Structure formats: C-alpha cells, structure tokens
C-alpha cells in the first residue's frame, strides 16, 4: 500500500518524476506537492482503490499530508470496515 500510494502521488502530482525527493514523513504541503484540487483527486483514489468511505471531516492534514499519514489513515479505515 505504501508503495502504491507513493506511486500515485508521484504519477499524479510530480508527473512521474523520481520520488526520492520526498520522504515518507514529509508534508506534501510543505514540499509544494499538492493543492486542494489534488487533495480531491487523492480522496477519489483512496475511495476507488481501497473502497474507503471518506467524509468531508477527514480532509485534514493529519490524514492526508504525507505518505505516513495516508498509510495510517487508510489502514485505520480498512480496519474499521473489517471489524464492523
């Protein structure tokens, strides 16, 4: 999942440029990788790829602003769905 998310970010926001330029814990905002329309694309990907249910309240940096945050957020949501 981590690799897949990284590939999505690189392909869609860095135009396929080698992603060594940002670490898993680095802020997309800080690095200028993403903007508000990008966030909506990212959310659409999480929904279609992992079947995640994402509410508007989830659109905060704690969930989406780095590879680490994304992985944590996605894993939590998938876990919640499985135990329901």
């Amino acid at each position: 999942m981590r690799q897949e998310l990284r590939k999505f970010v690189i392909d869609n926001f860095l135009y396929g440029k080698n992603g060594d330029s940002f670490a898993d814990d680095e802020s997309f905002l800080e690095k200028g990788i993403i903007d508000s329309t990008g966030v909506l694309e990212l959310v659409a990907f999480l929904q279609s790829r992992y079947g995640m249910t994402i509410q508007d309240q989830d659109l905060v940096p704690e969930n989406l602003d780095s590879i680490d945050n994304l992985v944590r957020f996605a894993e939590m949501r998938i876990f919640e769905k499985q135990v329901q």
Partner: protein
Amino acid sequence: MQVESFLELSAQKTPDKTALICNERRVSYRDADDAANKLAHSLKEAGIERGDRVAVYLDNSIEAVLAVFAVLKAGAVFLVVNPSTKADKLKYILNNCRAKGLITDRVKLSRIQEQLAGTGDLTTLWIANGTPETTAVPGKRILSLNAALNDPTVPDGPPAKKCIDIDLAALIYTSGSTGRPKGVMLTHLNVVSAASSITTYLENTPDDIILSVLPMAFDYGLYQILMAFKVGATVVLERSFTYPYKIIEALIREKVTGFPIVPTISAVLLQLDLSRVSFPALRYITNTAAALPTEHIRRLRDLFPAVKLYSMYGLTECKRVSYLPPEQLDARPTSVGRGMPNEEVYVVDDKGCKVGPQVVGELVVRGSNVMKGYWELPEETAKMLKPGPLPNEMVLYTGDLFRMDEEGYLYFVGRKDDIIKTRGEKVSPREVEDVLHAIPGVAEAAVIGVPDEVLGEAIRAVVTLCDGAQLTEMDVLQYCAANLEDFSTPKSVVFVSSLPKTSTGKVSRREVSAFAGGTA
C-alpha cells in the same frame, strides 16, 4: 497617511486585541507592532534605506506579515514573492528591482542558495528558523529573522519616519505578455486609497474576523491583512485551501465574519457536504480573480443564506475596480458591479472616447488607487497609463473589454491580450511557451486556456516535436513543474504535427485555441 500606520494606529487604539491568528499562534496588535519595529531597526542597521527594495519570500505566516510592516517602517519598499516561485525567476525579480534585502526561511533558502550568487545588489538575508551558524551564502550577510523580531537590545518604537505618501510602498510582480514578470509600483497613497475604498463598501469594523487562505504575493491576499489592520480587525491566516476541512473548522472555531475566495475555492467548497455545519458568525464572502459561474452563486447562497456575497473585479495595477452590491446579485448576476467609492470607471472606444451604455469598449479606471507604472518599463507603462481629463493626470487602461448598463453596472466581455486566468492567477502563455521551447525535442509550442470547472481556465500546451524526438506528456509536464510556479504548470499536453501560423510566420495562439478547445 502611510501604510505602516494601519498597524501603528491599531496598536495604539487596541493594543491587547488579537491582530493575527496563524496555526496555534495568536499575536496582539501591541506585540505585532513591537516585533515589526525591532525588525525595522535591524533592516536600517543592515543599511536598508528609504526607497530600497526588500523581498519577502515566505509562506503565509506571522513572520511574513511582520516583515511587510517592518520594511515599510524602515522607509523601504516591500515585494512579496509567491513561495512556489522557482529560484531562477526569484533571481530575475531580485535583480530586476535590485533588492538589497531578502526575508525568507531556511527551507526556501536551501532551494535558492545557488542562484543567490548572481544577485549583485542583495546584501543581507533574514532567515526564519535559521541561524548564521547553520546557513551561509558567500558574499551575503545572514541574520536570524526570529532573533531580529525579538531583539531586546533595540530601542522601543519605530525608526524615524522619512517617507511621504507619494513614496513607493510596494512592488507587486505580475505576469506580462512578454513572459517576464513586471513590478507594479504602488505608492502609500495608492494602497491607502484602495484599502479605504474596499473597507468602506465591505463595511468592515474592528469586530470583523477575516480568514485568508490566499497567498500574500497575490494582492487580494495581501490586502486582507492590510485592510484588517487598517480597521483594527483580526486576521486568521492560513497557508492554503489544500485541506478544506481544516479551513471549515477554522471558520467555525474562530467565528469568522469575512471569507475572501476565488472561483477555485468555491468549486471545492461546493463539492463538500456542509449540510451538518453552520457558520452563524459569517457576514460576508467576497469573490474576485475571475467571475463565479452563475450556478456557483446560486449554490453558495443556498449554502450560506444569511451571508452577503460580493462579486468583484480588479487588476493589480489599481488593486480593485468594481464590486457588485450584494442586493444587486439577483437583478444582475453576471455583472461585476460598479466602481468602488472614490473611483471613477468608464468605457472607451479605440480612440479613447467615452461610449454610451451597452457599447463594448476598453475599461478605464481613474482614481488615487491607480499605480505609478511598471518598475523601469516605460513602454509597458505607456500602454496602460494614458493621459486623463486633468493636466498631467494619468488614468489606467485596463486592457479588458467591458460594457456598462444604463445604471453604470459593468459586464466583462473579454481581454485584449492572451493572458490566461487559472486558479485565480494570471498566467502569461508566453512565459509557459518559453519554458516549453527550452525542452530538448520540442520544436514549437503554443499555450492556451481551456474551460475547466474547478480552475476557471486550465492551461493546455500544444506542441510539435523535432524529428525523431520522443517525449511523453509526463516528460513535458515534469519539465514544466520544475521550472514554473505550480499554477503556471500546464494541466495537459497535446502533440500535433504542425501549428497554425499568422501571416508573419508566428504561431497563432488564436487559431490553436479555436481548434484545441480553448476559451479564447
């Protein structure tokens, strides 16, 4: 009156009031004024004199606001550079205005360090989150911004004032049709006039709490702070609208009364489900940069029924031209309104003669908010500033085509040039084409705007390749992203085998636009 008085007078009147809220930090007017005074002394001590230019290259932050006021207090001229500006363009701007000082942060410095070697006039840098021990640039003096803002050893109060209100206060760089950015020269009088007119029609009071996500390099973002400080209100400053719910939470938590947006923000807002939240404190929303689609206006009013929605129009060269009084929105949904207080607007034909109602012509603006010209570009200036009705008076020819109805309300018809408006920013097709031409393998390129629901216009590159060249859309976009601001980077690339030309052999953007889905 000078612009720094906005802060100084509010600090005298309401010293303990919160001036700025940024992330978890809150700063009172007194503390903001004290810190800006200290930095102003540091600027003076570093040799910054009346009229010198100092660049502020920071994200929206308390430091960026304090830096702007400190530069003014030192009698100098500030310019705010968009934090997504790449190193070579920053270098061009610094050299173009011969900036003596640069205020930035450590992360940005690391990105631009190499280019700074070629900035001969730049003597001193103030670095946020950095110290002289951790950062060095050959030939430049490096000071800690945080230390300068907090230096206990400097005298209280601002440095002695020497400026008058017809001195320059700011340069705002804007895209030019030549592809090089132009510095719009604004005097203290220009800024004070525009801020007075706008706060008058928005009916701003000290009770206002204004949330701004707009970059301070964009005059619309900069003025949110200047105007709030002028009336002694509070600004909630956010870095961007990237995480919309963070902004929604801030609107509610801080009981925000004023929310300035651009159409892209509206498009994102309207994609959210806001049925379970409410904004009882919100008094007004303003929109500018590009017109809101009528459908957005309708849905925003459903979403915010008690909120006054102001449609506005302007250009950096005079800050703002017009606003539509909210009560006119139903009667004239497609109008950008009428001239603001203390300003005259009219429509002229090709000879510069005023035309009657409903006739399309170029919009002219007359008022003390009109710029002094473009920095060291007399020819470009002469195209925009032309003699007005009084001796030696100059009025602004906007380059925008409008018609006016019988009651003086303005309707935008089109632009006289090819500038693309995307995400609320103006982008010069030429600047993007210059970058495309520099890609090995690209033979010819034309850049056009295509309609986009979220961006207003999206940038499309139409290119032909040299024989044997193999470039993908990704390759082209990647190169653009590395050399242009994020908003100037094309959204799509179309490869063609040839481009239509004009009779003089130049690529015809108009023809390209007509065949490749363009708006123009």
